C-alpha cells in the first residue's frame, strides 16, 4: 500500500485534470482542485516523513508489477521526496490564494482550462521527482513544460503570447537535447533505469558515446534550469504570465530542473565521471557566478516589479547550481536548502505582488508609489520577503546562504564568499528600490484610497511570509533533512 503512494501522488492530479473539464462549473472545479492539491500535498508530506525515518531511506514501486531494470520503476529517496513536498506545497498555497487573482487576470471562459493545465503541470513536476526511469523523466518534463506554455499564454497582455512562444522554442530544443542524450545512453547500455544505468556507465567510462550523451543532457537541462547563457526565456515568461502562474513556476519549475540535473550527474554518470573526468564543477562554478552577478545587476535596473523578481530568480538559480558545483555534502546541502527556501521566498513575493496587481492593475514600480500605508500587510510581507531574499539573519534566506558560505570556506575558496557577499549587496539595492517606492515616495492621489487585499488572498500568503521567518529560526526541515539528503547522494 505504502509503495503505491508514490504513484498515486502523480496519478491523482493526472486523472483529475480532464475531470475538471467535465465538471466545468467554476466553483465546483475550484473545490475539486483544492481537494486534489491537498491530497497530493498530504501524500508527499507523508512520503517524506516515511522515507527520512525508514532504515533504507528509499522506497520503490514497480509499475504494472514488472521488476526494476525491465519495467518502469518509481523510486523515492530523501532528495526526491523533499522536492516533491516543495512542489505540492507551493501548488496548494497558490491554489488557495488564487480565487480573486485568477478571476481578475484570466478570462472567465478559460478558468476551467487554467485549472486543467495547472494540474497537468503539477503532474509533470511531481512525476520527475518520483520516477526512476530516464525516459520517463523526459516525458514528465514535456508534460510539465507543455502545460506551462499554455499557462503562460493565459496572461492578459498580448506580450504573453510571444513569451510563451519563445519559451516553447527554447524548452523544446532543451527537451530534445535530453532525448538525444538518453537515446545515446540507451544505445550503449541497453537500459533506461536511472540506477541500473549508473552501475553500467560506471564500468565503461572512456567511451565517446557516453561523453556525447553527457554533453547533450547537461546542456538540455541547463536550458530548463535557465542557467546563463540559456536564461533568455525566463524574464518574459515570468513577467507576462498571470501572477498565480509566475508564482507557481518561480517556486517549482526551475527547481525541479535542478533536481533533474543533480540526479543525472550523480546517479547516472557518477560524481567521479561528472566532476573529475569531465570537470563539470569548473564550468558550473563559472556559469553560476556569472548567473548570480548578471541576474542581480540586471534586476537593479528594472522598472517593473515582476520583471525585477524574474531577474532576481535567475540570480538565485545561480546560488543553487553554485552549491552543486562545490561537490561536497555541505555544498549540496546548501543547494537543496536554497531550493527549499527560495521556493518559499519567491512564491510569497510573487503572490504579494499579485495582491498589489489586484488593487492597482499594474506592476510598474512607478504606479505602486506610497502603497505602504494603504496596504500595510502586503507591503510588510514584501519587506520580510525581500530581507529573506537578501539573506538577513533570522530569515530563511540566511540559512541557505550560511551553508553556502561554509561550503566555500571548507574548500578554502575565499573569493566565492566575496562573490556571495557582493551579490547580497546587489540584492540589498534592488530590494531597497521596492521598499523606497512602497514607503518613502509620496503616495499618488489615486493610491491613497486603495484598500488592503482581501483576506482570502492575505491568509495563505501571510502563512508563507510566516514560514520565511519560521524556517530562519527552526531549521530542522531546511537544514536537517537537506543534510540527510545530501549525505545520501554524495555517500559519506
Amino acid at each position, binding site marked *: 500500500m505504502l509503495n503505491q503512494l508514490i504513484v498515486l501522488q502523480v496519478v491523482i492530479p493526472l486523472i483529475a485534470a480532464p475531470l475538471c473539464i467535465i465538471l466545468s462549473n467554476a466553483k465546483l472545479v475550484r473545490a475539486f482542485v483544492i481537494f486534489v492539491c491537498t491530497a497530493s500535498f498530504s501524500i508527499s508530506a507523508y512520503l517524506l516523513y516515511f522515507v527520512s525515518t525508514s532504515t533504507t531511506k528509499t522506497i520503490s514501486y514497480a509499475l504494472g508489477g514488472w521488476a526494476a531494470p525491465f519495467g518502469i520503476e518509481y523510486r523515492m529517496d530523501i532528495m526526491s521526496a523533499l522536492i516533491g513536498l516543495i512542489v505540492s506545497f507551493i501548488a496548494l498555497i497558490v491554489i488557495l490564494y488564487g480565487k480573486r487573482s485568477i478571476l481578475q487576470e484570466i478570462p472567465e471562459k478559460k478558468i476551467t482550462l487554467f485549472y486543467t493545465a495547472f494540474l497537468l503541470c503539477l503532474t509533470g513536476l511531481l512525476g520527475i521527482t518520483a520516477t526512476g526511469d530516464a525516459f520517463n523523466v523526459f*516525458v514528465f518534463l514535456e508534460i510539465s513544460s507543455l502545460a506551462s506554455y499554455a499557462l503562460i499564454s493565459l496572461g492578459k497582455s498580448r506580450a504573453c503570447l510571444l513569451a510563451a512562444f519563445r519559451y516553447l522554442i527554447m524548452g523544446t530544443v532543451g527537451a530534445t537535447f535530453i532525448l538525444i542524450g538518453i*537515446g545515446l545512453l540507451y*544505445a550503449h547500455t541497453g537500459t533506461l533505469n536511472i540506477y541500473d544505468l549508473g552501475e553500467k556507465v560506471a564500468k565503461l567510462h572512456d567511451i565517446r558515446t557516453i561523453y556525447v550523451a553527457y554533453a547533450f543532457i547537461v546542456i538540455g537541462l541547463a536550458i530548463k534550469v535557465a542557467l546563463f547563457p540559456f536564461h533568455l526565456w525566463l524574464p518574459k515568461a515570468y513577467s507576462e504570465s498571470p501572477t498565480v502562474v509566475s508564482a507557481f513556476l518561480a517556486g517549482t519549475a526551475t527547481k525541479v530542473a535542478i533536481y533533474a540535473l543533480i540526479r543525472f550527474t550523480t546517479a547516472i554518470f557518477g560524481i567521479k565521471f561528472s566532476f573529475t573526468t569531465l570537470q563539470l564543477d569548473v564550468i558550473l562554478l563559472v556559469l553560476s557566478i556569472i548567473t548570480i552577478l548578471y541576474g542581480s545587476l540586471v534586476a537593479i535596473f528594472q522598472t517593473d516589479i515582476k520583471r525585477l523578481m524574474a531577474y532576481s530568480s535567475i540570480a538565485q538559480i545561480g546560488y543553487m547550481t553554485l552549491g552543486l558545483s562545490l561537490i561536497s555534502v555541505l555544498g549540496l546541502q546548501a543547494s537543496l536548502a536554497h531550493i527549499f527556501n527560495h521556493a518559499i521566498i519567491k512564491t510569497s513575493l510573487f503572490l504579494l505582488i499579485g495582491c498589489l496587481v489586484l488593487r492597482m492593475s499594474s506592476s510598474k514600480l512607478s504606479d505602486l508609489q506610497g502603497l505602504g500605508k494603504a496596504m500595510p500587510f502586503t507591503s510588510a510581507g514584501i519587506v520580510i520577503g525581500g530581507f529573506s531574499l537578501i539573506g538577513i539573519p533570522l530569515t530563511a534566506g540566511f540559512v541557505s546562504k550560511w551553508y553556502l558560505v561554509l561550503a566555500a570556506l571548507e574548500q578554502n575558496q575565499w573569493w566565492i564568499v566575496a562573490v556571495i557577499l557582493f551579490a547580497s549587496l546587489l540584492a540589498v539595492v534592488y530590494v531597497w528600490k521596492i521598499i523606497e517606492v512602497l514607503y518613502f515616495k509620496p503616495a499618488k492621489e489615486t493610491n491613497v484610497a486603495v484598500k488592503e487585499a482581501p483576506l482570502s488572498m492575505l491568509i495563505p500568503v501571510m502563512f508563507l511570509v510566516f514560514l520565511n521567518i519560521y524556517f530562519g529560526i527552526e531549521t530542522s526541515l531546511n537544514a536537517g533533512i537537506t543534510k540527510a539528503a545530501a549525505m545520501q547522494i554524495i555517500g559519506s
Partner: protein
Amino acid sequence: MTDWHAIITYWAVITLLVFGLYIVTASSNLVKKIIGLNIFQAAVFVMYISMAKILNGTAPIITDKINEFSAYSNPLPHVLILTAIVVGVSTTALGLALIVRIKQSYNTIEETEIRQQEQTEKE
C-alpha cells in the same frame, strides 16, 4: 572501421539535426521556426529507430517461420519514439495555436516586425 552503409543513417541524423536547429534560430517567420523544430525532432526519431536495427535482423514478431531467423530488431526504441512523436505533435499543435493568436493580436507572424511593434509600444 565500421562499414559506411551501417552508419549512413547517423550522418543523415546529424545533417537533419543541424539543419533543423539552424532554421529555428535563423528564420524570423514563426511558422518556419516550428517547421525547423519539427525537422530537428524528426532527426532524433530517425536516430532512435536506426539504433534499434540489427544487421540481418527481422521484425520481432512470432510466426511459423520463427526458426529461419536468429536476430531480431529491438522493438523498445520504436515504442519510446512513439511517445516522443506524440510529444512532438502536441508541441507543434500548441506552437501553431500560439501563432494563430499572435497573428490575431499583432497582425503579423514575422518576429522582426513584432519586435518593432514592441519597441514603439515602449516609447
